[in-house]
């Protein structure tokens, strides 16, 4: 039985609830935008219900604690095809065991989730480092990213703590939504906006930057160049740390 959900996290939890409710031992969970084509097997669309989602969440909390919930949430944010099924398997395993099954690295689905969550964690860490803000005036700072995984919810707290006194916005141009923090209200808001004509990584056509912005970008580029030791050049290592796909967002690596 193929269970189709809307792609939201409560949606996934509702789906897990449904799999239990109808004792669907062969359930296969697919998010609606990853639906390849209509398959021959039976399928069913699951509606997101907060009450059901919360019941699953609370039940899991008793079994696998906060650490396990975080593991599941991060895996979910990977958006990888069929990650939902590993999540379902781990949930099943957790609910029928009395041990802390998260440490059973010999279990293939447990290990899979650890591996995926680690990748997501690595990307979270990378973007806490690679976000480059531009001062667009009035104490507003803007950055544009296109991460492989949906890491905005994971990096938001870091930026909120760090830049509590400035206003900032980070836009995920791949998923077409962003987060915005206002230093007066101290709230983070999610926003969906579309920059139809802005090429990624280049804001100039739509956003007026602060007069000093160009100078600081120039200074940063100069710094990046001056701190390099040419005699130690090691391109392989450099690329390993700063893969090319991130360059278009990095002030110091951008062309021009």
């Amino acid at each position, binding site marked *: 039985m193929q269970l189709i959900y809307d792609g939201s996290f409560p949606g996934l939890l509702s789906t897990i609830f449904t799999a239990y409710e109808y004792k669907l031992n062969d359930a296969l969970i697919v998010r609606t935008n990853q639906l390849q084509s209509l398959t021959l097997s039976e399928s069913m669309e699951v509606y997101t219900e907060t009450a059901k989602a919360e019941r699953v969440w609370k039940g899991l909390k008793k079994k696998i604690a906060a650490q396990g919930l975080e593991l599941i949430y991060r895996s979910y944010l990977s958006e990888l095809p069929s990650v939902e099924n590993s999540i379902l398997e781990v949930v099943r395993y957790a609910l029928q065991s009395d*041990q802390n*099954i998260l*440490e*059973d*690295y*010999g*279990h*293939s689905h447990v*290990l899979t989730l650890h591996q995926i969550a680690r990748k997501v964690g690595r990307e979270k*860490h990378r973007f*806490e*480092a*690679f*976000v*480059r*803000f*531009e*001062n667009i005036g009035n104490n507003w*700072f803007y*950055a544009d990213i296109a991460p492989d995984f949906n890491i905005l919810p994971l990096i938001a707290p*870091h930026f909120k*703590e*760090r*830049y*509590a*006194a*400035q206003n900032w916005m980070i836009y995920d141009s791949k998923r077409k939504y962003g987060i915005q923090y206002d230093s007066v209200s101290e709230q983070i808001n999610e926003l969906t906006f579309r920059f139809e004509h802005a090429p990624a990584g280049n804001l100039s056509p739509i956003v007026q930057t602060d007069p*000093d912005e160009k*100078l*600081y970008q*120039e*200074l*940063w580029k*100069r*710094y*990046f*160049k*001056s*701190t*390099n*030791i*040419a*005699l*130690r*050049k*090691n*391109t*392989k*290592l*450099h690329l*390993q*740390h*700063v893969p090319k796909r991130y360059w278009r967002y*990095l*002030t*110091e*690596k951008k062309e021009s």
Partner: protein
Amino acid sequence: MQTPSSERILEKLSILADAAKYDVSCSSSGSKRKNHNKGLGNSTGGGICHTYTEDGRCVSLLKILLTNHCIYDCAYCVSRKSNDIKRAAFTVEEVVELTLNFYKRNYIEGLFLSSGIFKNADTTMERLIAIARKLRTEHRFNGYIHLKSIPGASNALMQEAGLYADRLSVNLELPSETSLQLLAPGKTYEQIKKPMLLVSQTIQAQANEKRLLQRAAKPLFAPAGQSTQMVIGATPETDKDIMYQANALYQNYRMKRVYYSGYIPINPTDTRLPGVGTPAPLIREHRLYQSDWLMRFYGFQVTELLSDSFPQLDSDIDPKLSWALRNLHQFPVDINTADYEAILRIPGIGVQSAQKIISARRFGQLDVYQLKKLGVAFNRARYFLVCRGMGPASLGDLQDRQIKHFILAGYRSKFSNAVSSQLSLF
């Protein structure tokens, strides 16, 4: 377009970042500073690399000299008095503005400020402190600050520096006092170790006080501790000399990190130093760092890694494998019963895999397939372990040299590429 003043600041930054780059430390870890006053920034403890140089080094801090004017003439240093180079100096305000503006754009974790010694030690140290103080008090800056201690500065200044800085460091410069005297006229180990001792004692006193009062009584002094650096390859010390020196620094001064900086020939005239064009000893530097890790995270004693009969690290294999091959009688280790310390000593198993093995084996005996999935580098580890379904790899018949041969053949492609791409540069 660019104004004359922006031209000038760009030029200063080029000169003073270039002069600071030979100090390899760029760590921003070890300090947890919350953004408690709704100011700018915080330190998370783990440290963040915001970018990497083209030589693959982490860029975490704005690492600059306040000035490259210097009254000393250390032969291994670009800023030495007798060197004919462009000199520049930042104002306090300029460093503060650069730090704040880089930080707000998420370019950096903070500032690493060092300086050539102008006039005298105290004047130089005072100027460094003025910058840190301004950042912390006027601008409520909670990012990371690493200040260089200027040898010879007064105790009172050192104490004040520690109140604003997360980390303090003073470089040992060279791995032996003889070499230091030869190449750095006017510098002594005594002068360098005095601020090290003061910092470690102040940190220790603070820790005792905290334990007694159950809380931090005063503003924290250098919460990220201290570090130091030695230039290697410029002078004749062996790896054993270097690592024993490092070990003593860890023991006696509670160093958080000792850095090893492969000497880049920058002095074309001085015949006491390797000439310009000599390759930087990058592989050697790498092996020293690996030994350092083995001491800090793998429970190795320095005496196990290096000794009078084994004074230089192998360059073709890492020091852990090298140790294992010299100690085959301690293997094979049984993955399913051995304790953590023994598992950690198996070549091809790192801290993470070792921890996972300890957790996972409670659920059942582990086999080869699972070990591979847990991240064990099996081609290397296989000669040193037993697990479910796999007995000892007939170690009795194989000699250390044969094992080394097998292992090297296994990862030749990966490894020799790295080596040859480095070598091809020279």
